[in-house]
């Protein structure tokens, strides 16, 4: 038996009854485009189980740790049996969770929209940062401007900055066919070091404190309105509504507009799209720009909503754009999926933070690593979707040839 004979479906499409024998790219596309919630839920469960083993290895109790993380997320505020004594703390925690969810929804959309057009946008981080820089600049300039126009200008400039940044990768893809994975990764580094220069010591946008590499604070009028909680204690800003509107726009454009129809056609079968009279290159450029718009808006929401300034240290450790990839993958590139997976990751970020986690149960210094581990596991399990599907179909012989032969030898 040759190695090649283990792929009964052949290499060229035609998914067999078992869906085997496809390329990994085709499998990933099928996974992220297929409907259903079972596989993503199972993916999450498996990630938490594996994370539980990690907790066990550190000598802690996984159940009480997860309970503490859950309480740290503030999601217990939603449970009717939470006592009124616990409610104020839970409300504060939930506000933190939702503040984290806002940019994750937007960077998740930045990745999901690209996926729907057959592009892999790894550049969410760079686009998010470019948006943050623009928001900080616009927010700290125009000091006397009225509140509403100031916020609108800062947010719009941030989104456009993200769109232009991503548009570079889109333009390269559309004109010379440069692989967007490579170009967006490179643009991430460029954006990080650009920020280190802009806000670093002696940089053109460094603030008035001479020895601190941080920007000026944005003007009070450029800050987003806080509608839940105390603005002085990082209450929840209206960015959550911006993110939800973005989800709706994403769904409507994708499913109800001729542009969205083109994007989906190009994503599923570029050759058929061309045959239908569409310009594949134009769609690549447009889609990358829209992705950057979403990511840039995410940067604006963080700056105008609760950070108010940016330090080179923030730039170097920020992961929001990268987390967007996990959000989109787990959310299967759908609007509703992106919402829930952004909420999950937002909850994990805030639930394991030093501020929210009960230190007697799990040391907060270790806990944020736990988030990273679970995030990594989710990405791993999503990429290794075959594993999940194999478990789902264990009775139905997903990889009959290989498995049986191995058991024989």
């Amino acid at each position, binding site marked *: 038996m040759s190695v090649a004979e283990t792929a*009964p479906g052949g290499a060229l499409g035609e998914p067999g009854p078992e869906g085997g024998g496809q390329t990994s790219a085709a499998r990933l596309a099928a996974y992220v485009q297929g409907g259903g919630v079972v596989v993503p839920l199972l993916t999450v469960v498996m990630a938490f189980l594996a994370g539980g083993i990690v907790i066990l290895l550190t000598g802690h109790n996984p159940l009480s740790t997860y309970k503490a993380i859950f309480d740290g997320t503030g999601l217990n505020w939603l449970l009717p049996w939470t006592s009124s004594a616990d409610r104020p703390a839970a409300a504060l925690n939930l506000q933190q969770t939702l503040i984290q969810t806002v940019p994750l929804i937007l960077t998740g959309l930045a990745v999901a929209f690209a996926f729907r057009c057959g592009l892999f946008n790894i550049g969410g981080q760079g686009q998010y940062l470019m948006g943050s820089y623009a928001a900080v600049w616009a927010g700290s300039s125009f000091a006397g401007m009225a509140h509403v126009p100031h916020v609108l200008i800062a947010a719009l400039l941030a989104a456009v900055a993200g769109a232009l940044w991503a548009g570079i990768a889109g333009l390269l893809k559309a004109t010379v066919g440069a692989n967007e994975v490579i170009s967006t990764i490179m643009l991430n580094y460029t954006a990080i070091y650009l920020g280190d220069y802009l806000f670093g010591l002696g940089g053109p946008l460094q603030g008035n404190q001479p020895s601190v590499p941080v920007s000026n604070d944005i003007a009070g009028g450029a800050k987003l309105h806080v509608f839940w909680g105390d603005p002085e204690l990082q209450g929840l800003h209206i960015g959550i509504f911006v993110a939800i509107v973005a989800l709706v726009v994403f769904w409507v454009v994708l499913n109800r*507009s001729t542009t969205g129809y083109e994007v989906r056609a190009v994503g599923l*079968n570029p050759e058929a799209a*061309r045959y239908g*009279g569409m310009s594949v290159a134009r769609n690549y450029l447009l889609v990358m720009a829209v992705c950057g718009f979403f990511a840039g808006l995410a940067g604006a929401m963080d700056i105008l909503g609760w950070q108010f300034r940016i330090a080179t240290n923030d730039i170097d450790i920020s992961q929001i754009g990268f987390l967007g990839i996990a959000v989109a993958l787990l959310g299967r590139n759908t609007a509703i999926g992106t919402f829930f997976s952004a909420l999950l990751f937002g909850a994990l970020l805030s639930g394991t933070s030093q501020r929210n986690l009960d230190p007697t149960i799990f040391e907060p210094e270790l806990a944020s690593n736990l988030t990273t581990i679970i995030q990594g596991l989710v990405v791993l399990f999503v990429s290794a979707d075959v594993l999940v599907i194999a478990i789902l179909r264990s009775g139905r012989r997903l990889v*009959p040839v290989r498995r049986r032969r191995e058991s024989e030898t």
Partner: protein
Amino acid sequence: MDAALELRGITKRFGRIVANDGVDFDLQAGEVHALLGENGAGKSTLMSILYGLYRPDEGEIRVEGEPVTIDSPRRAIDLGIGMVHQHFMLIPVMTVAENIVLADEPRSAGGLLDVDAARSRVKELSDRFGLAVDPDAVIEDTSVGQQQRVEILKALYRDAQILVLDEPTAVLTAQETQDLFRVLRALRDDGKAIVFISHKLGEVLDIADRVTVLRRGKRVDTVATEGATEESLARLMVGRDVLLRVDKAPLQRREPILEVRDLHVRDDRDLPAVQGVDLTVHAGEIVAVAGVDGNGQTELIEAITGLRSVDSGAIVVEGRDRTGAGVRDMATAGISHIAEDRHRRGLVLNFSIAENLALRDYRTRELSRHGWLSPRKMVARARSLIREFDVRGGEPQTPAAALSGGNQQKCVIAREIAANPRVLVAAQPTRGLDVGAIEFVHRRLVTERDAGRGILLMSLESEEVRSLADRILVIYEGRIVGEFPPDATEEELGIAMTGGRRREAA
């Protein structure tokens, strides 16, 4: 004497679908036994059971009279069953000999691959059955026909007594098919038992001794090919009388609507593919471009439909020069295109039927306003086209991937005809379809011709060309080398298609 192979009452279900329903099949040493049936009739499932890829829910398999359980391909090979799949399973960068001995390599004293032993064994087998394969050739440099022979050798190398070939001729030219048949006859005369899976009636009559016909998972009958006709087999296969010959009204040729003048087009590697083609299609006629695959016909079609840029020359539609127009402009000018490959180009398989039917005109007022789609109108139109073109197995919201090949093709044809074109370019419109679907496509093309459209048919099947076309243009190395009437013989066409006779005076 016991049969080489006997299947009794084989039943296999996938969920609620019964792929095989109590199928009996027997195979004698020294015979070619064809397994005939439409797509989805259960041929491949039956053979997958035989090869240990699926286990039957019911039924019994006997090899040389002994009941056996085949639970893996390894077991099938041990029992002397060899399979040549439709998609070859060869490693392109390895040589023929290396591929053949893979996983069963002769080893020299040090445990290393004994290259010489491998090569000589391959050579010996190859010579014995007239396979003419060079053991040292690298797979990626060999032709499809040679690769298929390597697959056969792979089975023979493992001492296969029973050889299963799954639609082996689908990828071959007419000449290669004849070569394959010569090899199969040599194997048969040597006492091998051969299962030949196909839905091509002529080939089955040519090569097989007996035929078992499957329809919807059930065995309909097993008959000797002696005394059988294409019509009788088609009736068994489809379950009703099938018109294999197309009835056509006399030609009513009208004004010219598509004129191609001295067209030059390059292929993907930037080499000249179309080198000075002139052709004219009149309203009310079917003009066929016939030729062996890879002689520029694909590039010619792509240029005419706006998918490929033109080097020089002119494309004139209804008197207006459209040279260099893109896909959308060509479509507006009145050219529809049934694409050569419905999976790669003609359809977005993960789109619903309704979305696929909108692929060419989603921007028109009929389906959208100011950039917003009207799903309701898309579904309503899909519903009426599904009815008109008899697309079965799907609602407007069903993904195209869930349809059978024939129904997928009906979707493509429905969309292209619904655009009400002046010229319908049909590239291999029946590729991979079964007899019933072919009949539908042929009838529809003739209907459109009679309605006054001009039809440019590109086909690799000379039988299809002869039965449909009013004029046959033979293309060879990017040039039209001859024009023939539909009653030209297979030989005449074959000679021209292989460059045997150039048209005098250009």
